[in-house]
């Protein structure tokens, strides 16, 4: 009962609102940063996933579709691939699909129908190890020299670089937020110490111990951080919704719909408590330091 009674006013002074506001902003920023990071991670995983373990092989034979030699080369390559241990499945891309892919270049006219087209083979690997890709590549090359093998990684690597950069910014933001939170609490606690100098004097004179006074400040900081942190999350929810709505309205499908793992939400929900923890410890240390300079 006595432990819960506060000798410091929690409301009504400026520094307490200051902490509540700043923690709100900080938790808000942290949650946005976390989500950005998680989204980028998920996006990379998604892209990787849709690309990893697939190859496209282009057999450089400019032969007529009905030409048996062309068919023979294709058959041979398919045979080699399908017997390869690292390959799950290899299929020739149907001529119609290749025609489709070339339409931007040749139009849809009958001209294409008679055109000798390259043969494309889609390969799904059973593994994504680079060594397996090399092995497959080698055996295709020896069967059909000059075959072009595309593991789709060139463009992906560029995008991954960009996304990882954004992720780094998000992580940096998180680190800055943590530091800012600590500084805020130190600074607000010092301000409170000044603001409550007389209250502290009186508590001292009536025999309160440093731990007791520090505890009062720490509890205040805890409550303020929890309130501020909760408010930050409350602010975060509609913001996320708004951004998702904007994104969906602008370009449906350009960004895949990603559902975050439960752990993400757990971490988000833990943010106010994390802020509370940081606040409690910081306030305690700050007050004890300041008090130890007194008589």
């Amino acid at each position: 009962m006595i432990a819960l009674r506060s000798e410091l006013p929690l409301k009504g002074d400026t520094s307490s609102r200051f902490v509540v506001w700043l923690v709100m902003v900080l938790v808000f920023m942290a949650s946005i940063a976390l989500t950005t990071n998680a989204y980028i991670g998920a996006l990379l995983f998604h892209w990787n996933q849709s690309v990893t373990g697939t190859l496209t092989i282009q057999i450089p034979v400019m032969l007529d579709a009905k030409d048996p030699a062309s068919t023979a080369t294709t058959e041979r390559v398919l045979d080699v691939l399908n017997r390869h241990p690292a390959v799950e499945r290899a299929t020739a891309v149907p001529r119609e699909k290749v025609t489709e892919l070339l339409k931007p270049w040749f139009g849809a006219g009958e001209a294409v129908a008679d055109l000798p087209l390259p043969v494309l083979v889609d390969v799904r690997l059973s593994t994504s190890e680079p060594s397996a890709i090399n092995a497959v590549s080698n055996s295709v090359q020896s069967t059909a020299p000059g075959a072009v093998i595309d593991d789709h990684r060139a463009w992906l690597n560029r995008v991954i670089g960009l996304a990882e950069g954004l992720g780094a910014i998000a992580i940096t933001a998180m680190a800055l937020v943590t530091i800012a939170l600590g500084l805020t609490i130190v600074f607000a606690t010092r301000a409170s110490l000044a603001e409550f100098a007389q209250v502290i004097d009186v508590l001292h004179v009536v025999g309160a111990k440093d731990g007791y006074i520090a505890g009062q400040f720490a509890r205040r900081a805890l409550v303020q951080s929890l309130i501020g942190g909760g408010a930050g999350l409350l602010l975060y929810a509609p913001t996320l919704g708004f951004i998702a709505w904007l994104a969906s309205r602008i370009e449906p499908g350009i960004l895949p719909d990603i559902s975050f793992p439960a752990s993400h939400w757990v971490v988000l929900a833990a943010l106010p408590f994390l802020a509370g923890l940081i606040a409690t410890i910081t306030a305690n240390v700050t007050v004890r330091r300041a008090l130890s300079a007194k008589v």
Partner: protein
Amino acid sequence: MAQLRKKSDFVGDTVQLEDVGLRYADGPEIFSNVSLAIPQSSFYFLTGPSGAGKTSLLSLMYLAKRPTRGRLKLFGDDVTDAKRSRLPAIRRRLGVVFQDFRLLEHMTAFDNVALPLRIAKVSEATVEKNVTELLKWVGLEEFMQARPSVLSGGQQQRIAIARAVVHRPKLILADEPTGNVDDTIAFRLMQLFVELHKLGTSVIIATHNEHLVSRFAFPRLHLKAGTLTAMPPATGAES
């Protein structure tokens, strides 16, 4: 509240100053070479012109400042260089009335008075009983739930006195405790101090009120130009 007095078996001087000097920052010495022994259960007035250092001298005794020179003992303990962690226990045996009251604005009158008991973790039932009784004595039972800011100057001063004595301290240090009340109330408050004194508490009252000093037959410590002089009780006064 026996637990608050369990060290009452100690014998000797309540306060002892040996060649004490005090200066603020790099200013001049407020006073120097002050030596003084306040025996148990004594009652002293502390007088002297404004700015002589009465409040400063008391602040040494309630451990808000350390002497810049000399030695200070409280309840037989040398506290001149005592570790900070030892001080709260000593402070709980003191009761202080500040010249400017220093009531906590965010608390009711009741909670202000209850503060020393709650810090000492006295049971809430005892707190209730003792604080109510004391507030009645100082004539403020109607104002228990009022904030200090809505009280008159004299009412605030009485709250400050109640807070200083509620935990039955061994030593009461009161700085101009009757400057804002009329003579009737002043006499009643003095009676409170005298009662506690008779129960074994030592009392030091800093005051400008010559009338008060001459009315009670207690010895006087006079601080002037940095020197402390002990003076005998006024003659013909009541005790």
